[in-house]
């Protein structure tokens, strides 16, 4: 059995996106318009740290997505967490407690999502969309629409803006989260069940998988990760912007979708999500530095999502023959 023999095409499919990420990075490094600014340490660090938070939100969305369920409340949960954590910190709460508060809020909202979806039977898109609107209301009520600034402990915001070995500390947090999600999806029975569930729900039930528990847990995990992302956002910005959560949802979901077009074609996966996040980040950052107007990045993000997912679907279809 020639297990390791694979056609070249397979490698092209798997690594095309990674190639694009490298190509874009090289391009902006040598293009005269951007070569100086793009390669500056400050720019690269800010690019990495700001996208690390979004990447964690994307990994959160990835977990239910493996089951073919959408969690549209990822950004809202991160926003909720950041506002409450910033307020608590400003009020003198200790850092570990505030961290627990952020993650705990995420778990709570995720559990409510899970109950609505698996027990009440509300469609996941509807449940999480409704939840995200409610959470926007909670945040607004809490902040009156104003940023939460003030007494954030210095040690906390320093963590968000300093480096280890020249790389932002937040990136290490992302690495830990990514490894944890990779382990969960690829190396535990639970991860196997998630992919099985995403492939054929009824068959999953008939091989003895506890479907409600399996699906419900994905939303709890997603909530916990978003809560953590909210905490990191406070550390990075030194404040909590009530609007920031909303801006996470779409890029995070887009990257989670795009992951099916990279590394493991046809399957939503962790490495693909990271490649997609940083490909879009580099592209946007480079265009920005080149002085292109802001709407160009909208065009780029939208087109990348459609083309990427379209390609993934086509690849999947061709393998069917």
């Amino acid at each position, binding site marked *: 059995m020639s297990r390791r023999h694979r056609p070249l095409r397979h490698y092209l499919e798997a690594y095309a996106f990674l190639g694009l990420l490298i190509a874009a990075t090289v391009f902006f490094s040598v293009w005269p318009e951007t070569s100086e600014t793009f390669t500056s340490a400050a720019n690269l660090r800010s690019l990495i740290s700001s996208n690390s938070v979004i990447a964690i939100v994307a990994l959160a969305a990835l977990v239910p997505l493996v089951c073919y369920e959408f969690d549209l409340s990822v950004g809202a949960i991160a926003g909720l967490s950041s506002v409450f954590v910033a307020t608590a910190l400003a009020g003198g709460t200790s850092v570990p407690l505030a961290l627990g508060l952020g993650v705990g809020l995420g778990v709570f909202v995720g559990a409510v999502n899970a109950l609505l979806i698996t027990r009440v039977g509300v469609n996941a898109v509807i449940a999480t969309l409704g939840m995200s609107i409610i959470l926007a209301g909670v945040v607004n009520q809490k902040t009156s629409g104003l940023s939460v600034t003030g007494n954030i402990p210095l040690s906390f915001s320093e963590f968000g803006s300093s480096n280890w070995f020249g790389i932002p500390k937040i990136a290490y947090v992302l690495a830990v989260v990514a490894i944890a999600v990779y382990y969960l999806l690829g190396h*535990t029975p639970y991860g196997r069940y998630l992919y099985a569930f995403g492939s054929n729900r009824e068959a999953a039930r008939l091989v003895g998988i506890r479907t409600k528990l399996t699906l419900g847990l994905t939303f709890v995990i997603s909530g916990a990760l978003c809560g953590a992302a909210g905490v990191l956002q406070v550390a990075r910005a030194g404040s909590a912007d009530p609007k920031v959560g909303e801006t996470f949802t779409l890029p995070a979901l887009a990257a989670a979708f795009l992951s099916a077009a990279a590394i493991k074609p046809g399957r939503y996966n962790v490495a693909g999500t990271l490649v997609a996040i940083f490909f879009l980040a580099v592209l946007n950052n480079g265009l920005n530095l080149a002085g292109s107007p802001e709407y160009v990045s909208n065009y780029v993000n939208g087109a990348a999502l459609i083309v990427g997912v379209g390609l993934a679907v086509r690849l999947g279809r061709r393998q069917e023959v």
Partner: protein
Amino acid sequence: MNGVSTVLSAERVCKAFGATQALDGVSFELKKGSVHALLGGNGSGKSTLIKLIAGVEPADRGEIEIRGKRHDLRSMTPALARESGLHFVHQQRSTFPELTVAENLAIGRGFDTGFGARIEWRQARRRAAAVLERFQIDAHPDQVLEELGPATQTMVAIARALQDQDADAEGVLVLDEPTASLPAPEVTLLLDAIRRYADAGQSIVYVTHRLEEVFAVADRATLLRDGTVVDTVEPSSLDQEALVELMMGRTVAQIERLRGRPQGRPILAARRLSVGPLAALDLEICEGEIVGVGGLIGSGRSTLLKALFGVRPLESGEVCIDGEQRRIDSPPAAMAAGFAYVPEDRQKDAAFAELSVGENLSLTVVPDYWHRGVLNRRRERRDTLGLFDSFLITAESEEAELRSLSGGNQQKVVLARWLRREPRIILLDEPTQGVDVGARAEIYELVHRAVAAGAAALVASSDFEELARLCDRVIVLRKGVLVAELRGEDLDAERIARVANAEVVA
């Protein structure tokens, strides 16, 4: 009418997919007013041939002559096929179950519209009634399609394909495995209808892997194996065994029914089971026994298996395994009690199509590979390759997607997934549906092997021939009530059918 005129002939058709030669110089001729079967197992190339003729895929070589007009199959298109008078009814459902018969028929030809693009419903209904009469279909234009029996639904699909054809039936009807998802009694209904259409002058190409249907309906049959024509025969001049040998290229050992085998202790005792159509059913199964469940659709055949596997909650009754009463309210509970379940509809209820063969095989035992926080992939792979051998599974590799396998191999994967757990009781619902003759014999052998090792099997099937061949005894259900138990000399397909249909009370 000239009885021997040729309506359609395909000549030297070739098609390769990568390195695989799917078709190699295949030719056949269809005579007017006859049913010509294209017969072959999975991977014989029969579906590919139909796709080429339909213009869905381009051929590498080959020509087709329809009603005296020649076409190059390299440049065939679906539109050209339609123009030439070819009408296709494909295996997959192409009708709309929630719409009425009249709507289904009208969608095939376009709606007549009146003022303001309003659909002329009265006219559509009248036309539908005429079509139903012409094709002798027992249905009303206003009936919703899904209310009809599956065979009647297929007839509606055929009528839709043929409705615009001139009355003298010059076109060719191509049926691609129309009975693939029909239960046995419905198959008979459909075959009768097909025979009627042929006798009325319709020329029909009939693609199938079921021998019985070839004998029942075909005037001539072209046998395909590995992309080449083995022979073209008249089924009436052959017996079934000779045809199987031609098709497989080898003698298929008939599975001996091991009647009178010593049987062990009782494993399963179910008392007064009531669920859905089943009313107070008692059932006992012993070690080493294969028990069949016969009956028509709605007799409670499938419901019994679903109830025992915890898919449908019991309304009342109790289930004992090895003398111990077990509460079976979910599949995990059933699995813990020693049940395994191979569902009726593989695509819908058992196949993880885009997961690998290895993953499909492991899903019932994943926790066994979970050791000290890691999944032992190496052991999993070794076990998978072992299962390939012991369960006669042919796959490119353990990483191949399940959907790349033939139907027979997919079914063996599903079976292996369960038998590797060494269950006490194996519940099998239509274990060989959509499986070719060779794989069918292998599946029987695998079930026999598992049962010989001390398990027991409960097999529900609409194919009574299968029950008679495979089982030690067969219980027959009618409207949820056990009406007969056949064993030994009394056990044959005809008797099961008679009891199931209530013509005779045994």
